[in-house]
């Protein structure tokens, strides 16, 4: 828990800060919720390469975490999110979204089924108010535990090898979205095979007192596996390549929207697979059923963009030059060797295989150029290596 006078400190440091600060040669930081975290440590490209070629370590302690317990915890979680939480067994993790009454996405996150009936909800945004509203009529206890759990993402092709070197015997048998506890330094280290990179990778969860011993042991174990601390900029590259969306970037959390047409439903974020109408009532169910019948307004598309210029904030047009949407995330992808983008377009545009146009502006020596880039709507992730799902995971 935060100290009682925590407000006197404008920005908090994560439990790993003594190590991340020592490594941060660029002294580049930004604020994530109440914490300061590194944008980059040395070189964004090198850090990105660690994700795709060796082992990258990202401090995700500021991730918002809520613990949900009580007799109605499953019923509560099932009413909260759109997917069927009963299918997430103890020791498993599930990706999920939750909506407001109008079926518009408030946030996405992961549900950790820690022990039977005990759930941890991880999300980008603070959710305590919404969770408490949602708890009316349920016998549940909701505790915000962001500050009580330190987290590290360990991602990349050698991540499994590093964890084995750390002493996590059998970690290679952990399946994607699996969760397992290991003893560590007299406490418990929870390991989940989850991540935001679309690569082989794990997330480590530990109490803050053991954060620094974990960091030191991890980096010692990874010394010969190319382990490297990475900042948010490199992580951002990998998440776009994986085709993952981010709250506040690719969609506006519904509870922050003022204008009704600025929000998106799960269907409009290509997350229809997370909506399960066969389970009991959940918030947004009625609206989403209606949307399913009436049709969605928007579609999230993944675009393979012509040329090598990132389509940053580009308007998207149909072949008749009608403005049909906007790019929300874009980059030059080193892994896909292409300019890639996530965009939100109006229906009925954006069917897989369709060719659209992105209006790209770029600067060369202070001169602006405009380029109408042809883009192809593709299905699935831009980069999706087999090692991401392979079990047992490669451990050398």
């Amino acid at each position, binding site marked *: 828990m935060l100290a009682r006078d925590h407000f006197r400190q404008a920005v908090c440091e994560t439990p790993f800060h003594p190590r991340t600060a020592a490594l941060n040669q660029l002294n580049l930081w930004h604020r994530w919720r109440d914490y300061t975290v590194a944008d980059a440590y040395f070189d964004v490209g090198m850090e990105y390469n660690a994700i795709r070629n060796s082992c990258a370590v990202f401090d995700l302690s500021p991730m918002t975490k809520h613990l949900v317990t009580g007799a109605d915890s499953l*019923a509560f979680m099932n*009413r*909260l999110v759109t997917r069927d939480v009963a299918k997430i067994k103890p020791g498993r993790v599930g990706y999920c979204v939750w909506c*407001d*009454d109008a079926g518009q996405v408030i946030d996405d996150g992961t549900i950790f089924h820690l022990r039977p009936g005990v759930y941890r909800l991880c999300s980008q945004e603070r959710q305590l108010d*919404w969770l408490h*509203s*949602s708890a*009316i*009529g*349920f016998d549940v206890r909701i505790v915000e535990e962001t500050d009580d759990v330190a987290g590290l993402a360990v991602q990349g092709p050698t991540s499994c090898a590093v964890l084995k070197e750390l002493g996590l015997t059998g970690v290679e048998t952990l399946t994607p979205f699996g969760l397992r506890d290991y003893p560590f330094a007299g406490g418990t280290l929870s390991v989940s095979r989850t991540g935001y990179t679309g690569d082989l990778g794990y997330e480590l969860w530990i109490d803050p007192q053991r954060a620094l011993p974990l960091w030191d042991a991890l980096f010692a174990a990874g010394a010969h596996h190319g382990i490297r601390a990475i900042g948010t900029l490199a992580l951002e590259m990998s998440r776009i390549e994986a085709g993952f969306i981010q709250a506040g970037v690719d969609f506006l959390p519904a509870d922050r929207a003022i204008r009704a047409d600025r929000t998106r439903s799960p269907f409009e974020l290509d997350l229809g697979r997370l909506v399960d109408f066969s389970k*009991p*009532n959940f*918030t*947004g*169910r*009625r609206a989403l*059923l209606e949307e399913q019948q009436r049709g969605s307004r928007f579609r999230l598309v993944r675009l393979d963009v012509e040329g090598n210029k990132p389509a940053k904030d580009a308007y998207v047009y149909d072949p008749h030059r009608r403005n049909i949407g906007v790019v929300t995330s874009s980059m030059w992808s080193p892994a896909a060797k292409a300019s890639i983008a996530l965009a939100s377009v109006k229906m009925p545009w954006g069917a897989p295989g369709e060719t659209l146009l992105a209006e790209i502006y770029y600067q060369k020596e202070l001169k602006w150029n405009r380029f109408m880039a042809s883009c192809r709507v593709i299905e699935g992730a831009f980069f999706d290596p087999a090692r991401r799902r392979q079990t047992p995971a490669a451990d050398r």
Partner: protein
Amino acid sequence: MTEAQSVIVIGAGHNGLVCANYLARAGRKVLVLEAASQLGGAAATREFAPGFLVSAVAHLLHLLDSRVERELGLAGHGLAYAKTALQTVSLSAQGAPLSLSEGEVRSGELSTDDRSALRAYTARMQKFSRLIARMHQRVPPRLHFQSWHDALPAAALALDIRRLGRRDMQEFLRIATMNIFDVLEERFESAQLKGALALDGVLGTRLGPRSGNSVYAALYRGSGSVNGRPGALALPRGGMGAVTNALGAAARAAGVELRLDAKVAEILVSNGRATGVRLVDGQQLTADAIVSNADPKSTLLRLLGARHLEAEFARRVHHLRATGTAAKLHLALDGLPRFRGLAPEQLGERLIIAPDLDYIEQAFNPAKYGEYSARPVIEITLPTVHDISLAPPGKHVLSAVVQYAPYDLKAGWSGARAPFQTAVMDVLEQHAPGIGAQVQHAELLTPVDIEQQFGITGGHWHHGELALDQFMMLRPVAGAAQYATPVDGLYLCGAGCHPGGGVMGSAGRNAARVILGGH
């Protein structure tokens, strides 16, 4: 809309019975389930002491929807009045009582200025109340218009306000959100008169004269009529149960099945649709539509359960303000009491102890902090003056609404009942010396008792505070203000809906129109 062929109505209060009547007349197969052993809910006549009968909660009839009375032929089903057009008599512990009716002073001292101001005030308030009464007869507009059909009631309201004329429209818009204290201070000199008029703005609410919404509450209270006389107060012959018994008789004649001692434990839901109810004895009954006369919180959070609702909607229902502050005191008297300065022929009028604005405000103050009034405001009727059937020969019944007795009493009601009753009796004794010795039996219903005995969450007789933020398209909450709830096949028809409480029946009638798809 799917045509609901069979309907279960939960609760045989007046609105439930009204709704059942209209549904049955339209050919629906209607079953009314009532938890208690008699019809009427809070609009019932009960024996509170051997041989003594009293209107259990509501004791004055003044809001009954005249269309309901006429269309359902309630007179033909036994509804008669023991007395119509009661005067309001403001008692005074020192001076003479002040008696008012229809904007005129019938007895007591009042300056010429106050007399003419009273006439003007009454005329204007009645005009505004008529506007409100027209709204009562309509299904409220939606906040989001999906069709012109939805916009019509809003347009009608705007037109009604415009048709008041420029000066009255300005005045209506000015005072509608004011407090009654300021409105009365602008107009009158007499403290006694102001106290008497202010009571109408706070009775049955959690408001004091200086609280916002008290003008709206006064307009609401004045929005009815009896036999065409606006703002009139009446006593049904046989107590308030006469209204619901007539509604029950009309319902039976229309083919409604009324089942007493049938307490609903749960509203059953299947695939997002209300399909029936489970009774406390375990019996399950199914129907095409379920209509609840219970208050919104009971219906949606207890009988249905928040898990069947969306989270934001459930939160709105959860936050509905429905905390009663009105208690009911029933006295079985061995004779007629004698009030200071009151002529014997005035005993049967509506007697009020609300001597001035500050007295009422000071009575309200403790309620804000979870305490009861040491010197409460009281509205008294002696129905036996007009209706000897309610008590043994020579005996009398005193029925009093007593404020303020907050439901959420900080110390809890179990240890507070006796001292509160003593406080009420002390105030009565000051105005009617010797009344304590005449009491053969007393029954005090605190809001907690009203909750327990009548199943009204918070014991609030309006099922939800009467206030502009819980009014019309916001009553009980946005998303359920047109009587249909988000759960298909589940409807509300009680006082928690537009227009609100009081023995009126408009909510039940409007709900039936929605269910029948004809509004």
